[in-house]
């Protein structure tokens, strides 16, 4: 037993060395300088549990970015390594994971998490350890009020809500709506903000109902909404809930327009809901319909390149979550380049606030001391499901 173990260790070391050699050998002209230290960046993502469909593409994007950086010159010649931890979609696990990354791995910056709940659990740790955290979650509470060390890549729920209210008011021209939301942090946060901002758009919320993330039948909530004079229903949640709702609405022959959240901005929704998904409208990043981004612009180029590289490596289409993960990695490494350090947390944090007009995949980022969101509502469009595909909804 003991002997076996002794033999295994050198073998492992050799494997690592061989792997390292291969990586180095594969490099072109601009290469990482192996004599320089490796820049470590921590990441906490939801790789298992209900938020796994978010965390997985984020992880894939980060691994792609790591490969791309190290095939080039890394960060100022330093090799980059993303150390990715799984929070199992649970806030308390996310908190433990970020603590481990900061204390044991000594990472200078952390990316994550995938969901709002997990990110909110990690934020206090980032704050007290003075380590910048760049999250991939959209909950408004994460950056409102601004915490010095917490930043975000995706468009916020506020931006999506702004877009949805604009659509309801100016395109659908409705005055009374019903909200049906997931009872989790994302759904509740979205519903709260919708209820709060709707009056400004001259819209009244006539019904507000919720459902559990794993519920499969929402007919009870829908019959209640059917009994009101709501002219449209806004559904705030992530798959599979909204797909069940679309099917239930078809079952109950409800004809009012279904406006979704950016949580259903993936093709899964169409697959799951089938014909019931027809006519559903939701806000999403422009990258989902690259044609909506100006031809020849730097942003369009970045999206096309990313989509191609992702397709080559994983044989999959990009989605918004992949973009969030990729952008989070880009922002941290860009800040490292600007600060000229891969270890000084404070300098990296300060550099993120200096980022201006930086082209990512989700949009064009500009951070400041007061704005830790980077994007704006202009980076979003409304998309409609039509004949089983997405089309830009121009009113």
């Amino acid at each position, binding site marked *: 037993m003991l002997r076996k173990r002794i033999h295994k260790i050198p073998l492992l070391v050799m494997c690592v060395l061989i792997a390292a050699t291969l990586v180095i050998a594969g490099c072109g002209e601009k290469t990482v300088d192996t004599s320089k230290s490796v820049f470590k960046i921590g990441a906490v993502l939801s790789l*298992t549990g209900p938020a796994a469909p978010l965390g997985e593409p984020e992880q894939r994007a980060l691994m792609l970015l790591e490969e791309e950086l190290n095939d080039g010159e890394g960060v100022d010649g330093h090799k980059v390594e993303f150390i990715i931890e799984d929070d199992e979609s649970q806030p308390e696990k996310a908190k433990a994971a970020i603590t481990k990354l900061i204390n044991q791995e000594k990472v200078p910056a952390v990316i994550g998490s995938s969901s709002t709940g997990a990110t909110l659990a990690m934020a206090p740790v980032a704050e007290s350890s003075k380590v910048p955290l760049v999250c991939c979650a959209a909950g408004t509470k994460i950056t409102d009020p601004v915490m010095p060390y917490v930043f975000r890549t995706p468009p916020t729920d506020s931006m999506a809500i702004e877009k949805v209210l604009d659509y309801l008011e100016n395109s659908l021209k409705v005055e009374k709506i019903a909200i049906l939301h997931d009872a989790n942090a994302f759904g509740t946060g979205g519903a709260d903000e919708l209820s709060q901002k709707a009056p400004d758009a001259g819209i009244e919320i006539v019904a507000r109902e919720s459902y559990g993330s794993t519920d499969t039948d929402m007919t009870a909530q829908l*019959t209640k909404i059917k009994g009101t004079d709501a002219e449209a229903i806004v559904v705030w949640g992530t798959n599979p809930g909204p797909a069940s709702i679309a099917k239930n609405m078809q079952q109950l022959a409800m004809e009012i327009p279904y406006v979704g959240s950016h949580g259903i901005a993936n093709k899964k929704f169409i697959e799951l809901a089938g014909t019931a998904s027809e006519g559903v409208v939701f806000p999403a990043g422009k990258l989902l319909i690259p044609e909506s981004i100006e031809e020849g612009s730097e942003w369009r180029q970045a999206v096309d390149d990313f989509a191609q590289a992702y397709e080559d490596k994983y044989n999959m289409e990009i989605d918004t979550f992949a973009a969030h993960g990729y952008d989070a990695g880009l922002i941290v490494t860009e800040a490292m380049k600007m600060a000229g350090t891969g270890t000084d947390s404070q300098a990296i944090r300060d550099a993120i606030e200096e980022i201006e007009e930086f082209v990512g995949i989700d949009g064009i980022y500009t951070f400041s001391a007061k704005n830790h969101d980077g994007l704006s509502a202009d980076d979003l469009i409304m998309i409609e499901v039509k004949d089983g595909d997405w089309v830009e909804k121009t009113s």
Partner: protein
Amino acid sequence: MARREVSRKTLLTVTAVFIAAVAGLTLALKGSTGLQWIVSGLTVGSIYALVAMGFSVIYSSTRVINFAQGEFSMLGGMLMYSIYMRAGLPLPLAFLVSVLIVTLIGAGLERATIHPLRNQSVISVIIVTIGLAIFIRATAKLIWGSEPVKVASFTGDKPLRFLGASIVPQSFWVFGLTLLAFVLVFLFFDRTLLGKGMRAAAANPDAASLMGISSSTSSLVAWTMAAALGAAAGIVIAPINFAYYYAGTMLGLKGFTAAILGGLGSASGAVVGGLLLGVLETIVAGVFPSGYKSAVAFVILILVLLIRPEGLLGRSEGVKV
């Protein structure tokens, strides 16, 4: 003993009156909307009942609560996706192959992980089933990924309407399977020698083994049956629920609650518990702010364990000292 029987009868009457009152009131006050709630609740309730029966089969034969029961259903749904939707086998064949694979997995897991623990306490075996659930879930995620997948309805999606309520055709498949499973499980445990022997083996393994009933065989048969039942359930509900690697957790929890409510180890208890839980959940979601819906299962679980741990239709196990 006699007093116990009376209290059981009283309880059943009280339950029946309660159900009738709730249903009657809902219909009277809400009309077709109320009818819709009851219809939807019965569909969801049948799903719970099917999973609850799986719990019951293993519990009545071995006194083990199998927390991987929901995972068998999840596997059934996922396999159906691969075999029916992707490989394109005809429906009946895909159904049989999926059930067969899960059944073999169930039997294999029993031999690999439960059988070696035959001389350990029941609680250790229960803990192992929690481990099995995590193992099956993780493996399923590796195979099928984390996104939900769609299994097409067996007989189309055109809803049937009556009296202002509507129901999707797949619900009838769920009702049908619930009825069939109930009859088979009931007949097996009450009418066949093997079934009776298995219950005896659970009640008193030593005495049963003296009579030539092996608790080892009993456990294998129970796990095989529970896996088959769970898989069949997972397959018929997949078009309603969607199939995803995480689905077993919710099914397991609700099925367990239904089994406790109805009385662990009783097939009729599983059905009554499942239907009751499903209908109550839907009515609560309809009448109260829908956020309270998810609390229903837990409140029921706590109440039953506090007031009548043996469940509505279960019989208390008098242990004589």
